[in-house]
């Protein structure tokens, strides 16, 4: 039997290419770069405010300047724009998506609310450049606080959250 098998292989060799196949391996490569990450380094803080008779608005710009309208008295106290440190690919551009709806701050006792709206940032059109040197960039956020009168918005500590999205441009 073994001898017959040997003869068979000889036959196949002698009539080549009835249906042949040849193959190679192709190489593939991709580099996955770091995604954008962000860390809040400073709270968006409107500071201490006295609404008085009719309330009003308090605006903080991304540059950290605070102004008011209406019957608001702003105490000389700590306030700040929201600040974030963004990390990503060096030399990339990062854009930001800000809240498009009013965000609610709730009194610590939970019975009163104020709203924050008109979020703005210092991200230029086209995006914030991530530094070549350390792969980071700072982004600041401002917004406007709406307060009713002192009766509707009693004294206390109001807090809330807002969501921002950082992404590569």
């Amino acid at each position, binding site marked *: 039997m073994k001898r017959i098998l040997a003869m068979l292989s000889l036959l196949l060799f002698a009539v080549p290419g009835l249906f042949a196949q040849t193959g*190679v391996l192709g190489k593939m490569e991709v580099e996955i770069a770091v995604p954008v990450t962000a860390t809040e380094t400073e709270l968006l803080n409107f500071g201490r405010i006295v609404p008085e008779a009719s309330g009003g608005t308090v605006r903080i710009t991304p540059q950290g300047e605070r102004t008011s309208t209406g019957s608001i008295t702003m105490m000389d106290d700590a306030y700040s724009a929201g600040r974030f440190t963004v990390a990503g690919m060096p030399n990339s551009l990062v854009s930001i998506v800000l809240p498009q709806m009013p965000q609610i701050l709730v009194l610590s006792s939970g019975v009163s609310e104020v709203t924050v709206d008109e979020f703005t940032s210092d991200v230029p059109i086209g995006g914030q450049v991530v530094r070549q040197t350390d792969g980071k960039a700072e982004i600041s956020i401002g917004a406007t606080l709406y307060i009713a009168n002192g009766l509707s918005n009693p004294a206390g500590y109001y807090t809330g959250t807002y969501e921002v999205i950082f992404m590569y441009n």
Partner: protein
Amino acid sequence: MKRIKYSIMAVFALGVVALPATAANPTASALVEAELVQMVTLVKTVDMQFGKVALTGEGVGTLVLGVDGVITPTNLFVPTTGNVTPTAAVFGVNGLSGTSYTVNIPAGSVTLTKQGGSETMDVSAFTVKLDTKAAGVTTGTIGTDNSFAVGATLTIPTTQAEGKYTGTFPVSISYN
């Protein structure tokens, strides 16, 4: 035993005799002999390169690399600086002109592995384009289709670790 052995020998003899018989003259019979030694070879000439991308955080990333080397990213950021140009893989086919062949590319997915790591990603949806054929046509002829390009789609899960990933994929040709 003996009977089987004889019948095989007969086929063998017929095969050898039949080859020159197809030729009309002595010159042609020399050509037939050349055909017997002619090899069809397949070589890789260009590697598949997806380039550099980053997840935007909007969801699973997909990077379609066309047979023309054009990438279509979804949920991915493609940096313009410090990147490499994406390229489809290119393979060369050599052999006797007029030989028909069919390209076989992976039907499923192939794995890329992170260099210096164990993380993996899948490449799937391989596509092929022969020189003179429409994309997707897998059968060509040596002489008119002496090379073909291969593209594919890379899927990048949202939690994929950064780094350089490499892998291989098998390509073969069948021919008559």
